[in-house]
């Protein structure tokens, strides 16, 4: 056996610990929206226009929808059909939904005509469109959950359309239990996630400037 002529190996330097998942998540959250832009107190000059009001008006109406809807779940159908407070909350829920849909559509018109998908805002536009479609589904299942003649009429009319496109076995509008659970749990969850992602993307990329204000991107 001969002696080794290789130089001595220096002691290995300890490798830095890989960041834990909590550190990675914290870093991800911190960098999702640039510093100071989660709740900004200044906006560009062009945001001083009524057209830019309808997005936050949609969020305000949605808050009333959620609160009045939660109150309806506490009282139940006999409460919202037969008592004065129940009918009042039922009407608040209906009219806040009407307002929500109206201002959301006006928001959609404004964003469409200013091509709001410009400047890397494609996903902001896409999540807005999906939230719009989700809102239609949530409102539709709400009409089916009224437990009155109107709900029965709408469900019997809608079943033919859904059967015609082949999804009637999965979306059974004649099943009040399924439609009520979709209305109060499933679809609000989906819609809530979409709205949160949409708002975070707006804060991440900023409010879209008018077409004639946009600067060339280098």
């Amino acid at each position, binding site marked *: 056996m001969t002696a080794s002529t290789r130089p001595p190996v220096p002691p290995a330097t300890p490798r830095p610990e890989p960041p834990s998942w909590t550190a990675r998540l914290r870093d991800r959250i911190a960098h999702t929206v*640039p510093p100071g*832009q989660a709740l900004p107190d*200044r906006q560009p000059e062009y945001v*001083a*226009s009524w057209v830019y009001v309808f997005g936050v008006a949609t969020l305000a109406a949605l808050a009333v929808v959620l609160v009045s809807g939660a109150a309806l779940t506490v009282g139940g159908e006999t409460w919202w059909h037969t008592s004065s407070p129940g009918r009042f909350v039922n009407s608040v829920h209906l009219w806040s939904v009407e307002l929500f849909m109206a201002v959301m559509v006006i928001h959609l018109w404004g964003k469409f005509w200013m091509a709001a998908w410009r400047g890397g805002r494609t996903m902001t536009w896409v999540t807005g469109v999906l939230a719009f479609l989700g809102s239609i589904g949530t409102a539709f299942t709400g009409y089916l959950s009224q437990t*009155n003649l109107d709900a029965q009429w709408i469900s019997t009319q809608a079943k033919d359309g859904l059967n015609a496109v082949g999804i009637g076995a999965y979306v059974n509008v004649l099943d009040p239990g399924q439609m009520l659970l979709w209305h109060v749990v499933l679809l609000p969850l989906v819609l809530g996630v979409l709205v949160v992602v949409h708002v975070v993307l707006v804060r991440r990329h900023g409010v*879209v*400037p008018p077409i004639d204000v946009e600067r060339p991107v280098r």
Partner: protein
Amino acid sequence: MIQAAAAPAPPATYLDWGVIHISLSNAAIIAAMLLLFALAIALPFPVGRDRGAAAPPGRPDGRDGRRDR
């Protein structure tokens, strides 16, 4: 009370224009939305005198809506 809840609503008035068949109330709501949209574009937005300097175009920090990385 249950009887009142189950009572059918009076029939709605419908407007017909070619293939378009729409209730008067829905048409009125759509007309009001269009009017509101036009007013939102036309009317000036009130700006307080004590507001600070506006942020530059694009984003409040001067960037242009592009991703940061």
